[in-house]
């Protein structure tokens, strides 16, 4: 589940202008890094141009899925692989757009050329959101709930084992109390007489 690139573009019908770009081309060879970057920007521009405003779009391109969210002329693009859940991708794009608007306000509307300065937020976003749980709260909640459910299943199993042990303990204790009931009144009087007679036979030699 990998994000390869996140882009923010300004698209208003004509050629889109890149406002922020962050790519992770570390897994390509040395000679392929630049071409990969160019490829990403080109595809990003094409897709952004074709996305109507306030619409979401997902395009499959070779082994990447490109998710694009156009909101009032500001477009956010994400290059992800197949396993990244679509919903999380769009919530991530939403977040990026919100953050961009918060930090840059409306100044992006007047930009005419591609922006060259990197945007640090995007960089950390790229690394942070490799795990879809970070981007999508729903995904996170679902995952936490599943883990909790597993833990609870284990708990119930151990509680059942505890119940069995308690059952055996209760049986043993009831046996104990029953047998101690017998010993409570001491030995019967006949046994007493027998004991005394035995001691009589023995005691004269001692005396």
């Amino acid at each position, binding site marked *: 589940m990998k994000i390869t690139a996140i882009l923010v573009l300004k698209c208003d019908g004509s050629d889109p202008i890149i406002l922020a770009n962050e790519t992770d081309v570390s897994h390509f060879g040395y000679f392929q890094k630049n071409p990969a970057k160019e490829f990403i920007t080109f595809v990003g521009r094409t897709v952004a141009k074709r996305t*109507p405003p*306030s*619409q*979401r*779009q*997902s395009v499959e391109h070779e082994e990447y899925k490109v998710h694009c969210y156009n909101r009032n002329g500001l477009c956010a693009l994400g290059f992800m692989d197949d396993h990244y859940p*679509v*919903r999380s991708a*769009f919530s991530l794009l939403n977040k990026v757009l919100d953050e961009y608007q918060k930090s840059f306000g409306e100044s992006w509307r007047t930009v005419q050329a591609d922006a060259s300065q990197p945007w640090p937020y995007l960089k950390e976003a790229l690394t942070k959101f490799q795990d879809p749980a970070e981007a999508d709260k*729903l*995904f996170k*909640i*679902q995952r936490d*709930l*599943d883990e*909790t*459910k597993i833990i*609870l*299943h284990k*708990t*119930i199993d151990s*509680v*059942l084992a*505890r*119940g069995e042990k*308690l*059952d055996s*303990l*209760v049986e043993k*204790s*009831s046996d*104990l*109390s029953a047998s*101690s*009931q017998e*010993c*409570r*009144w*001491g*030995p019967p009087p006949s046994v*007493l007489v027998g*004991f*005394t007679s035995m*001691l*009589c036979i023995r*005691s*004269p030699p001692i*005396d």
Partner: protein
Amino acid sequence: MYVKSGQSSYRDRTQEFINVTERLKKSVSSSGVQQNVATSSNSGSKFDAQRSAVSIQSEFNKRASKIGYGIHGTSQKLAKLAKLAKRTSVFDDPTVEIQELTTVIKQDITALNSAVVDLQLLCNSQNESGNISSDTTSHSTTVVDNLKNRLMSATKEFKEVLTMRTENLKVHENRRQLFSSSGSKDSASPFVRQRPLAARDGCKCLKPLSSPMGQWVNVIITIISQVCKTILSLILILKKLMDGETSSPSQPLLQQQQQQEQQQQQQMVPLQDSYMQSRAEALQNVESTIHELSNIFQQLATMVSEQGEIAIRIDENMEDTLANVEGAQGQLLKYLNGISSNRWLMIKIFFVLIVFLMIFLFFVA
């Protein structure tokens, strides 16, 4: 009707009737022929009036018979619907057929209603136009009243069948909720979804526990249930927000755009919907997971409380054993004392025995 009467109290006059009808038919057809030739002749007008009266009458009869037939068919369908509604069970519910039948019967009843109203209008116009005997008017009014009454009884039966069906559905829903708690995801309004959880919370805190551990578990359960409730309410708020979102993006289907854009947008809307649907699905999953979790906690609480009771029993048994063993120890101590102080008793017993031996020897020797 009176087929089996022993004394036949009727006279079969069908033959006369047939003759009369043939005569009238001939006269009507002949008057029609005359009508084409002479426009304003008295006999022609009289025949015309007669024919119109007859035609009106026959028209009335035709309509009335059609309505009566329709009412009969509707009542038959109603009987079938009643049988279907009665035999609904929890699992084998012929909802589709029942719905179809209800719609068909409703349409029939409305059509019959309008037909009866038309018939009554016709009857009134007939009465006003004069030219016919009072018997006919009374006959037509009684026919119309009869039809109205039958239609009213049919509608009343229909209403009763519908109420019975809704009651059956309610009973089934209650029974279904008793047996399956987490499967109820089909409620449309958020309040229905919150109510089962509230009911469940109500009976969550009911376990009568005596051990402190059990009470502690109970407290935990109440806290967790409250947490679940808050989470669910948050989820519902999120859902409402999402529904608000779905309404806004699915609106832009502008008609003045070019065809290509329109096509694109039509493709977009399903994508938006699928996106929203996937979000809704995820929320529902989360909610069902939370329900399952609450179930698991409930079972856990039950088991722990039972085991608490077992622990109490063990404790009592051990105390009993302790008391018994202490009693046994006391007895043994007494016995020990008895044994340790026995020598003096023994000496006395020996003296008594020797005395007896002496007396015995005296007697024998």
